[in-house]
């Protein structure tokens, strides 16, 4: 087990290193720079600024410097958006805002999505199944900004039930969380349904019935645990993605979260912020994937982690 984790951590470090390099190079390939805008400063000022932030050196040298500094825990300072504030501080300030909305959305997506899948599978072929399938299909095909906008117009503007901007009271969490959760909820529902359908016809389910186990327990104890692996696989990257915030939802509801900031940093060519947020997101995803792999073993004892985590 420890050997497995050590191996995976080593792999993860390599992945993060590669992501760092690729992002850095791509970022520099994109035309423009942090200090170029409609009112560009004079060439002398530009040269001075570039020299200050080390942008005058060749790209490979910049990359080397960045990595050396990053390994020491220094991810640079914002060049433009929050001038000269350390990137680490900015991320740690923004992340909790996104994470708060994200956790609620994630928990909601799982707690509603999984039962939707179970119920649909149990009542397969009936109108309940059909209704849930229509709902989940709509959920995975409507883009997030449509959900967010429709909610905003109906609940926020037309009926004035919920606040439209910011995160001031618990009420203001409802729409952003729902918009963020709707797609994953429906996706999880579909995943859970298809894998439950497979499990529910297994012979051990019949054994459980023959033992006299109540239906609820058969579905949510015997079947669900066997059907959970695909859902778990999806949950890893989803957790990282949803906790770091959705750009669309944060933009529509004007939430000062990390997701929105990430995209804005790209538009602004604020190089250290782009790098910082990318590395943060990448590390998060890699970590969650590892956590999921370890959880596989907890869900299905037949999985042998030492053999690469396959059944």
């Amino acid at each position, binding site marked *: 087990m420890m050997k497995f984790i050590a191996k995976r951590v080593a792999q993860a470090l390599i992945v993060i290193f590669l992501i760092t390099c690729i992002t850095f190079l791509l970022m520099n390939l994109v035309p423009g720079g942090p200090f170029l805008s409609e009112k560009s400063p004079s060439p002398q000022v530009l040269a001075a600024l570039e020299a200050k932030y080390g942008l005058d050196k060749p790209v490979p040298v910049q990359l080397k410097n960045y990595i050396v500094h990053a390994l020491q825990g220094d991810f640079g300072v914002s060049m433009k958006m929050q001038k000269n504030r350390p990137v680490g501080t900015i991320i740690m300030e923004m992340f909790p805002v996104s994470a708060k909305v994200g956790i609620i959305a994630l928990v909601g997506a799982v707690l509603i999505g999984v039962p939707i899948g179970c119920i649909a599978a149990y009542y397969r072929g009936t109108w309940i199944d059909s209704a849930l399938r229509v709902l989940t299909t709509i959920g995975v095909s409507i883009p997030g900004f449509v959900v967010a906008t429709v909610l905003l117009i109906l609940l926020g503007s037309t009926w004035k039930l919920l606040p439209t901007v910011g995160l001031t009271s618990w009420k203001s969490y409802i729409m952003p969380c729902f918009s963020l959760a709707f797609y994953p909820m429906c996706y999880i529902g579909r995943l859970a349904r298809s894998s439950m359908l497979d499990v529910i016809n297994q*012979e051990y389910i*019949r054994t459980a019935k023959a033992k006299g186990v109540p239906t609820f327990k058969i579905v949510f104890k015997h079947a669900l645990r066997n059907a959970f692996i695909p859902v778990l696989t999806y949950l890893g990257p989803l957790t990282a993605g949803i906790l770091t915030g959705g750009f669309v939802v944060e933009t529509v509801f004007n939430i000062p979260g990390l997701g929105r900031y990430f995209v804005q940093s790209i538009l602004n060519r604020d190089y250290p912020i782009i790098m910082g947020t990318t590395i943060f997101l990448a590390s998060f995803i890699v970590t969650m994937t590892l956590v999921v792999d370890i959880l596989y073993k907890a869900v299905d004892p037949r999985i042998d982690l030492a053999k690469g985590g396959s059944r």
Partner: protein
Amino acid sequence: MNNMVNNMDKKNQKLLEVKDLRVSFFTPVGEVKAVGGISYDLNYGEVMGIVGESGSGKSVEAYAIMGLLQSPGKVVGGSITFDGEDVLAKSEKEMQAFRGNQVSMIFQNPMTCLNPVYTIGDQLIEAIRCHKKISKAEAREKSIEMLKLVGINNPERRMNQYPHEFSGGMRQRVMIAMGLICDPKMLIADEPTTALDVTIQAQIIELMKDIQQKTQMAIIFITHNLGVVAEICDRVTVMYAGKIVEQGNVEDIFYRPHHPYTMGLLRSMPRLDAEEYERLIPIEGTPVDMLNPPAGCPFGPRCEHCMKICLRREPPQIDLGNGHTAACWLLVDEAKRLAKKEETPNE
């Protein structure tokens, strides 16, 4: 073993009474009458074998008793009375209390019948606690005791293991332990040895015999293996195409079979006492198409003694005495003769 005394007392009393049971599967291409009106009784402590080829409805009939028929299967007629209670009238909740407690069932393939993600102990304890309000520790103790009974070594350690750590024969033993754990009055064994290799089969049969003697529990033993039937059963029911063709105690069926199908089954079975030149004689033809069953006797088209009437009208069950019945037109005359014979001494 609380039931043991009970079972002993009630010996020769009816435990299960199946009357004209009909089960159909409503498939897109039509209704398949998987079980077409069968009747039989089972006494307390009795072991009955149900024999028949694949698709003869023997398992379906057992699922009907357990209330485990899956859509599109449905009981369309008849009655099942177990210990004085109408099983078919029970609600789903009552059936949950019935299954595993009054009647339990073990299945053909032990490799896939245990839930792979829970320990054996978990699954055994659950089986008890579904029906009896006892503490986990007591349930655990009882489970260990049952594992010992079915011959699993080191049961304390085995309790914490997962099914994939057991061999096929061991898993079937666990299934048997699970089936017996609530002291049911009856056990339905649906081809419990079919998926096991021959030496393990013998062990499992031996174990079931042993347990039956200890508990005096009634068993319905579904199989297509006549050797197993001879080994363990008191009575045999032979099914063909969803109907009972012959029924009787083991000696009558094996030594005095009256239905051509039973005779055919016996001829196609390898025997130790066969002469070297003797060949196994297969039953010609193929099983009936259950979507379009023939009008008369279902076995008619394959029967070497087939008469005109066999293809037109269904044969009645002929009583051959001593609980031995067979459904065959050939026996109608014989039955008359037997009846006459019985009358003569009285005159």
